[in-house]
């Protein structure tokens, strides 16, 4: 991996971000609803006051001009003030980001840790009871809508059995000083094991809900690529060499079988970003996803713009990381 390639990727990012900004801008312009009307609500104000407000928010200028102002500021990493918070958008997002990253990472870990072993076992014991259960389960996992599955989990574990919390990141009595913003880390830094456990319990249901579709898809990909790989000559040759079965399966078969799993995992990690908006809303999770949903309702244009750009960058970076991992698994591919 040379520096040149890295630079190339960064340059490729520019048209992507430009395109994404334009699309979001146009979509917001086409969506009915006026931020000023929403801010004012039921209060009665004079037309002069309204015009004043509109001018302050920069909404009195024509669309095209607004877009170029946005671009000019964005290249200096200035995304303006949030209409609703009255503070820089970047600050508001930065506050919410750790909650989302924490949730996504835990969901990713849960998904990978379940999907890969399940897929491998299902392939090795093809047509066994376990294989069938896993295959049917994964079909359900892909088909169940996240908001519905999340509510179902809340009803079962939080309302009915009362063993897990309904919503939020941590109980009020367990709050610790924010250092990193990641509660799993902050509670440990504070040396509060009880709070750590509480944070983990809060994470469990949203992480499972968020990770479920990914788990299902990755399990199927791993299963089918494992089946495919086990038919290959090199697996037969490995057996003919008298290698222990474990080594044939995990070193020879799995390493090759994981190649498609990694590509799909990267794409699916991108889709976690979308899933976050639903899951965070259902579980009252104070992260970026819920912030974006709220901002859409409030027509909080600057925040939506910045958040979407952030999603786009994240998506591109994830794919780039997947490409690197791909070359590690598959020596035939050079970046």
């Amino acid at each position: 991996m040379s520096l040149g390639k890295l630079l190339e990727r960064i340059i490729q990012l520019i048209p992507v971000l430009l395109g994404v900004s334009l699309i979001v801008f146009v979509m917001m312009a086409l969506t009915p609803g006026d931020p000023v009307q929403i801010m004012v609500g039921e209060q009665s104000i004079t037309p002069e006051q309204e015009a004043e407000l509109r001018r302050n928010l920069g909404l009195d200028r024509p669309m095209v001009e607004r877009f170029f102002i946005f671009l000019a500021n964005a290249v200096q990493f200035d995304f303006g003030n949030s209409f609703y918070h009255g503070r820089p958008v970047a600050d508001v997002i930065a506050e919410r980001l750790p909650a989302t990253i924490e949730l996504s990472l835990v969901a990713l870990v849960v998904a990978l840790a379940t999907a890969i072993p399940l897929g491998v076992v299902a392939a090795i014991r093809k047509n066994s009871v376990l294989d069938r259960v896993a295959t049917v389960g994964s079909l359900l996992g892909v088909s169940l809508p996240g908001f519905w599955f999340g509510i179902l989990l809340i009803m079962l574990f939080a309302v009915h059995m009362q063993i897990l919390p309904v919503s939020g990141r941590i109980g009020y009595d367990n709050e610790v000083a924010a250092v990193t913003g990641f509660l799993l880390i902050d509670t440990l830094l504070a040396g509060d094991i009880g709070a750590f456990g509480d944070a983990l319990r809060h994470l469990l249901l949203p992480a499972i809900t968020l990770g479920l579709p990914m788990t299902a898809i990755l399990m199927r990909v791993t299963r089918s690529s494992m089946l495919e790989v086990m038919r290959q000559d090199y697996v037969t040759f490995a057996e003919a060499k008298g290698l222990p079965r474990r080594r044939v399966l995990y070193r020879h078969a799995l390493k090759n079988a994981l190649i498609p799993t990694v590509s799909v995992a990267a794409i699916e990690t991108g889709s976690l970003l979308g899933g976050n908006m639903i899951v965070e809303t259902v579980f009252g999770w104070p992260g970026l996803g819920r912030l974006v949903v709220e901002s859409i309702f409030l027509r909080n244009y600057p925040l939506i713009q910045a958040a979407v750009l952030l999603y786009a960058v994240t998506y591109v970076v994830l794919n780039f990381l997947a490409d690197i991992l791909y070359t590690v698994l598959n020596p035939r591919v050079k970046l």
Partner: protein
Amino acid sequence: MTVLLEVTSLRTEFATRAGLVRAVDGVSLQVRRGECLGVVGESGSGKSVTFTSVMGLVRSPGKVAAGTIFFDGRDLCQLSSEEMRAIRGRDIAMTMQDALTALNPALTVGEQMAEVMVAHDETLPAGRAARRSAIRERSVEMLGLVGIPSPETRLRQYPHEFSGGMRQRIMIAIALTCRPKLLIADEPTTALDVTIQAQVLELITDIRARLGMAVVLITHDLGVVAEHCDRVMVMYAGQVVEEGPTAAVIERPRHPYTRGLLASIPRPALRGQRIEPIMGQVPDLVGLPPQCRFHSRCPMARPECLVAVPMLPAGPGRQARCLRLEDLA
């Protein structure tokens, strides 16, 4: 020469949708220590399946249904899967047709060599460093033996970084790492250029002489057999149809199928004459009637051939499965 491998009445079946396929049907054979047996036949004649059965590597839905496989005094069919694993790669090694697909693309050549030693060699030193250098030394030696230049650097490379002929050599080196008593070479030259073919065969013959191992050379090229094998076995539709010393069989085949195979080889001496192909196709192996299987394609077939034909003696050390073998003498 004592017998190393003795297969008796081997039957390997595959349960398919169309019915039970007897890919190998009553095959008996012997391989003596240090000799080279050529196994010839068309695709689907059961030559590969016979030896995958010997290796214990027949995959579902296939299984060895009957017969005994004695190797070095032990019946391989009676061994546990762990005992069988210990024999594979150490006492019986196998190379496959295409080294490109037989070598794992994701692992270095060094690792693929080392793992055989780790799996079988109890004489490796216990310490980590000593073990590693012993493995390395042995790998370099093996790559040198098969003629790979600068083996030290080559060990760190992946299969796709080698040419076709080199990959074939590497596969052979891997197979020979534990100095097996028997090497099963399944079509070792089919995937190679003609010039490389000769080199690889020379290599196998050369190493066989040096290590004193027996070789089973599975091929559909009678020319290869003529040059490298002590004895030859011709298979057709899951059965052995002729078997004997190479020179005698090629000089005067005693089965019409063998004769047909020989007649379909282009020869400079017979320039201008038409090559005579064997008409028709290999019969469907599902629900074969118990008669001579070559009957439908045989230019010499007679009504009395519609019976089950056993292997019949056909001269010193020779057998053939043909009622009319006297007419071919």
